[in-house]
């Protein structure tokens, strides 16, 4: 809420070494973006019309629900990764049937069926 002249404020900022350092890094970033051709792409992408199209595609009922479940999904993925690391011996059909008594396996199977249903919609 400062009432000071913005130009004068900028000049004092320029004397601040922290700001000078940040500014030189920013220039380096801009140079790199230009060299790699990414700057051109960024300029094109940030055209309001393109941004609107991107938002329109990204913001849907599905993505809103997905965003909400990402936390749970990531935790699940962690568990899956852990299970993949485990040493297991090959299972027979009778072992597969027996394992259905395991509530975790039964629940997982239920999830799998729900997933298949959703995929078939």
């Amino acid at each position, binding site marked *: *809420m400062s009432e000071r002249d913005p130009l004068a404020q900028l000049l004092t900022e320029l004397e601040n070494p922290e700001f000078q350092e940040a500014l030189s890094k920013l220039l380096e970033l801009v140079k790199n973006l230009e060299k790699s051709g990414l700057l051109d792409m960024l300029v094109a992408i940030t055209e*309001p019309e393109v941004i*609107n199209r991107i*938002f*329109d595609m990204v*913001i*849907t*009922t599905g*993505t*809103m*629900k997905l*965003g*909400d479940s*990402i*936390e749970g999904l990531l935790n699940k993925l962690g568990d899956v990764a852990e299970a993949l690391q485990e040493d297991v011996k090959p299972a027979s059909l009778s072992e597969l049937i027996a394992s259905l008594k395991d509530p975790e396996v039964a629940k997982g199977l239920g999830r799998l069926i729900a997933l298949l249903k959703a995929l078939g919609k």
Partner: protein
Amino acid sequence: MTEKVVVLGAGTGGLVAANLLVSHGYDVTLVEKKDYHLFQPGMLWIAFQGHDPSKYMRRVDTLVKPGVNLLKDTVESIDLNERTVKLESGKTLDYDKLIIALGVSYDYDSVPGHRQLWETYGDYFSGPEHAQRLWKHVSSLREGKLVLAAADPLYKCPPAPHKAAFLSSYTLKKMGRKDKVEVILALPFIHAYPSETMAKIVEPKLEEAGVTVMTMFTVESIDVENKKIYSMEGEELEYDVAAVIPINKGPQIEITPDSVKDEDGFIKVNKYTLEVEGFDDVYAIGDCNNTPTSKTGVTAHLGAEVVVDRILGYDAKFTGRTNCPIVANGTATFVISSYEHPVIPVKFSKFKRMLEDLFIAAYWSSLRDPEKWRSVFKAYFEATDPTKLGESGW
């Protein structure tokens, strides 16, 4: 000849309407008595986490597009038959179209003791200076009871006291006073939140934060000397620091004809077109009208878009859509409903907190350049339409 539109009030609704109309080539005059626009939810962070008010304030003249004729003045009276607006400076404006966006006014005098309580402790509704006063008391409360209550069930931003309870309990925890200070949320509703659907989601979260919830407690009088609050339902509460949401009323201005105001001074409108009853050239948007939906920045913003579209000649309709954010520690949820659809269950998540952070980050830009944000907001409101999210909610 260009149509002359007069917009009264530079809150969320007024700024969005004025800036949209000027980009469509209308002759727009915006009247505002204050120099600064306040991001009102910011008062919660000022009052309960000690934030600097400057973070939530911007000069009104930096929020209007070039071309908007901004008048720093106070509205005294409006004559809808004569199509004139009288200002405190003595100036009289005439208009082809009028948009009233004057918000609510607060009544601290109908509840005995309320003015004295407010002058002592402040609150998180009436302005940044009062929120700072409340912070002074909250931050120096070593032990005892912090009471957050309401004088009436109809106030703007229904989840404001819940946010206040969450934020203050986290602050007290951080200060190591959680066991010494009890946060009591005492509200007029039957459940912890006006909508039972959301109460079921919010109540366990409040419990988790250690907040004591009291329902059916509408403040009737306050005894500041003995630090006691009495409810209309016949109970009493002791406090060490208390903030009571004031009775909200319509804007304190004279309108001719008087019949367009309801008994509390809210302006009677068609709930879909937002046209003031009996006048097709006058609209009332945001908190100052009597639409049966929550009084929030989101409804003001959406209302402004509807009114601008109608002035442009489209048959746009206001849906009463709400999107009231409730923030808890690191998470958030939204209260989502519309005229056609009651509140759906929406649970707390980190993702929604991120969305809320993005909404806040876009706030200033969405006021000054609302046209740039329209399609983004439209996509969001369509994606989260209560009928689309379904009964299982979000």
